[in-house]
């Protein structure tokens, strides 16, 4: 990989852009493995090696590491023979545009990694695929988690807008594939409470407890790749537990470890559950995210316009 400049891109967004980045991506992708294809979908996802002027060196769409390594070898071989290799001029049309919501990262707030994967069945054979999302908190949402006068043993409600946002946007079965977020009507039960475990001059320790039950009617959408459709309700029923440490002088959390575990059932068009409809055990884990390009990746739900507005409005206007 050291011989390449690696870049990660949300192509469902980029391939529809009419600017330099969109045109460049389409130029490359149309030479690749899905070039010209419109059925079963027009997706162009995959791995592409190319020159800065858009000459394709190699491409593939696979999770097989050996195939990826071979694709990279082929690309480097073609690169070594390419006249384009000597092209060092800066690409035309670069517009220095922040195009992917990284610019609304909550610098003064808090970001959690959210991991999700299946939990072991009694058969002990479990699909080990997993997925990652991020939960963003604005600065006032972080401070809103801390009681004004914390007393050991007292418990209080997790702020409802936050608990509902987490239940709606983040407690989604994406362990094996993408899935739409819940709608407000799908939230059947959302209860989260924080109990003060210990208070010192420097720190407040909190214990998170909660229950979330979400259920949605079947979409009846047909997966264009498998021709299967989601024709049964989908849902999750989860118990939340967590250990939180708030640093009073820094006014930030030093620990925000939590789990949401329980049952999931049903399928959505692309979450690869048609042959594993459940009910079966699933687990979500949260922890503080590290400030990095990966840690700064926006929540998946931010790409839904209404959700983006929710985050953006909060950032700009604090509501």
């Amino acid at each position, binding site marked *: 990989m050291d011989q390449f400049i*690696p*870049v990660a891109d949300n192509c469902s967004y980029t391939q529809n852009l009419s600017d330099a980045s969109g045109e460049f991506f389409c130029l490359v992708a149309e030479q690749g493995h899905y070039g010209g294809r419109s059925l079963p979908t027009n997706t162009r996802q*995959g791995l592409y090696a190319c020159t800065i002027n858009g000459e394709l060196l190699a491409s593939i769409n696979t999770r097989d590491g050996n195939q990826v390594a071979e694709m990279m070898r082929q690309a480097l071989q073609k690169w070594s023979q390419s006249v384009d290799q000597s092209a060092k*001029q800066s690409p035309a049309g670069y517009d220095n545009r922040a195009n*992917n919501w990284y610019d609304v990262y909550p610098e003064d707030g808090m970001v959690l990694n959210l991991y999700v994967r299946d939990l072991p069945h009694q058969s002990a054979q479990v699909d080990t695929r997993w997925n990652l999302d991020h939960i963003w908190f604005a600065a006032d949402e972080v401070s809103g988690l801390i009681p004004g006068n914390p007393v050991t043993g007292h418990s209080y409600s997790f702020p409802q807008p936050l608990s509902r946002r987490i239940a709606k946007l983040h407690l989604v079965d994406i362990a094996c594939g993408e899935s739409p977020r819940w709608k407000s009507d799908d939230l059947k039960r959302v209860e989260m409470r924080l109990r003060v475990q210990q208070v010192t001059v420097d720190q407040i320790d909190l214990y998170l407890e909660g229950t979330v039950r979400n259920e949605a009617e079947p979409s009846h959408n047909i997966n264009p790749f498998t021709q299967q459709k989601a024709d049964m309700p989908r849902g999750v029923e989860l118990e939340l*537990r967590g250990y939180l440490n708030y640093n009073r002088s820094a006014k930030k959390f030093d620990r925000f470890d939590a789990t949401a575990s329980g049952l999931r059932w049903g399928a959505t068009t692309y979450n690869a559950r048609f042959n594993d409809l459940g009910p079966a055990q699933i687990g979500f884990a949260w922890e503080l995210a590290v400030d990095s390009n990966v840690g700064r990746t926006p929540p998946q739900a931010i790409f839904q316009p209404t959700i983006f507005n929710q985050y953006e409005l909060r950032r700009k206007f604090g509501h």
Partner: protein
Amino acid sequence: MSNLARSQPPLTSVPADAQQFDKLHTFIKPKIDELRWTEIPWEIDLGHARQKAALQNRPLFIWAMNGNPLGCT
């Protein structure tokens, strides 16, 4: 992400104490081997990556997914 089979002892679905919580939390989180892709210095903007590739005379390696590959896909 990785789908290699692995056998694990049964977990308590809802942790009753801190020890069970740690076990469940650790199980759900990805292992070091599952996070090796995060060690790659991914650029997050295609235009900026092209500029960098031009300056360093290297080809681009684009990881394109429906959804951000560095987050949820």
